[in-house]
């Protein structure tokens, strides 16, 4: 099969998936390699957007919206704020990588190859089966079912409460840690 016949055989869903994946992976590569931290943060946003597109091909529109809301609307903005506050560190001249870059690259590539082989051989090709059909009623009801499962003691009530407490603790902790104290005497700090 030549590349051209492959292109013409694509369905619209596959096209969406491939575009979203290219955006995700390409932007992720920019995130980890770009010298300019601000550009890396912008690429991080693009990567999150691509992941939201992948969610949509998985019939999870609610989660795609949640992804936009939490990752782009909150986490990325927080990261950009942190970059702006610490922007004296943004010298673009020096290398963005530390001395472990070779080892890290090797581990990442080797890990990916191992996982890829496992996925491709998984259950003798079951991973290549088509997406199973689902009744539209199940999908349109999924948000309501999710909400109910968060308050159902037999489902996710406990994890939900734990996560809520974790978020609250993280918020209080973040405010406490980042709160500007009295002018710190460097000598006292070293002692």
């Amino acid at each position, binding site marked *: 099969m030549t590349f051209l016949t492959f292109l013409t055989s694509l369905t619209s869903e596959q096209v969406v998936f491939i575009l979203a994946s290219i955006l995700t992976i390409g932007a992720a590569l920019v995130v980890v390699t770009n010298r300019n931290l601000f550009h890396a943060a*912008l690429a991080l946003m693009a990567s999150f957007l691509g992941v939201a597109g992948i969610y949509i091909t998985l019939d999870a529109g609610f989660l795609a919206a949640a992804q936009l809301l939490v990752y782009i609307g909150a986490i990325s903005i927080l990261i950009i704020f942190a970059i702006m506050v610490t922007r004296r560190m943004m010298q673009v001249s020096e290398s963005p990588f530390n001395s472990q870059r070779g080892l890290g690259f090797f581990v990442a590539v080797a890990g990916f190859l191992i996982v890829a082989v496992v996925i491709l051989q998984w259950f003798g090709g079951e991973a290549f089966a088509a997406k199973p059909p689902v009744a539209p009623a199940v999908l349109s009801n999924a948000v309501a079912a999710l909400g109910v499962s968060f308050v159902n003691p037999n489902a996710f009530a406990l994890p939900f409460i734990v996560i809520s407490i974790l978020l609250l603790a993280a918020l209080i902790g973040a405010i406490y840690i980042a709160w500007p104290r009295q002018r710190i005497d460097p000598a006292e700090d070293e002692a």
Partner: protein
Amino acid sequence: MSFNLIDFLLSFLDMTVLDYANEVWGDQPWLSPLLSVIYIVVIATVVLLLVFVVGWTERKVLARMQDRIGPNRVGGRYGMLQMVADVVKMMTKEVIIPAGADRWAYLAAPVVSLATSILLFAVLPLAPGVVGVNLPSGIFYVMAISSVSIVGLLLAGWGSNNKYALLGAFRAVSQLVSYEVPLMITLLVPVILAGTLSLVSIVEEQTIPYFFYVPLAGIIFFISILAETGRSPFDLLEAESEIIAGFHIEYSGMYFGLFMAAEYIAIMFMSALFATVYWGGYNFFGLEDLVLANGFAIGRPIGFISLIVKIAIAFFIFMWVRATLPRFRIDQLLDFNWKLMVPLSLVLLFVVVLLNKAIDVYAPGITEFGRMSIHLLSNVIIGIVVLEIMRRRARRKREAEEGPDAGGWRMEPVLAESDETQLAHAD
């Protein structure tokens, strides 16, 4: 059903053209993508063109409120073509990218702003059965996209390499992120009353507009959208007298025009959202579902016009507020949000949830009107309590500042001052 040109043209009049196309060509695989593309093109174009109308209206109404005439030269007696002339002017101006600007961020910022504004209209129900896409979680989509629009401001502020732009972006983000909280909480109130996240279902559930159920939540929502769109009295992010124009100070020509269009479109959408979730959207006393004996769905245009009128009223209140109130200070703005709006909206959400459940359990057969009365009563009580608390706090503060005897109204020494100035002039 076969294609009939007369029926096809008639279906434009009563806005059933989407249904008509589905009936005639419903079994074709190309129909649904084609209709989507046409809908996108039409909505995006109309929304962009409406910026002309909205911009002109705002300038004219503001001028009248400030005892001026407003645009009156270009395009006849009322200056109707003023905005067209302005856009032509902007198009012919050079786009100057400042030295040292972050080129990518600088160029992407207006695009992101405008795209997020237009994307919002995808889920807005325009008339019965006329909606871009009836998402099961439409409200959530609106929240998500409007939170992405903050990115455009950050990009502009950072990319311009200008300290005023950066200050404006910081102000904008702290303001928008803060006011998103009451906005989302008060958006959840109609969601709980209707029991659905879909905008279409929320409109259809509103036989009585939710503003009559929970007027306090409606008012908080309106104040939040004023802040979200950066309108006066919350226009700190572009305060001319302090930070010149905020995040778009370095933009010239049509790039500035894109920001302006994005702002107007966001205002239009937020007015439309307010009209949809609190004023019943396209509902008009049940007339919106009227179908004539010959199958002509006259109700749809009626519903559409009713929605447009509601949006216009909401937009008029926007302009009215802008012409009336002075700008907040940044600490007042954040205090107002975190110490009044957020707690109050949380209390409202709690009360609405509990009351709604209690009504379902203890009075399952209650009429819509009875349900409305109970919610309204609870809102009135909360409103009185909040006003009383605010009054006491203000009095305590005043007494702490001026001593315990300084209650009540005091006359400012206006007369003496003007005497002095008169004397000064006489000299």
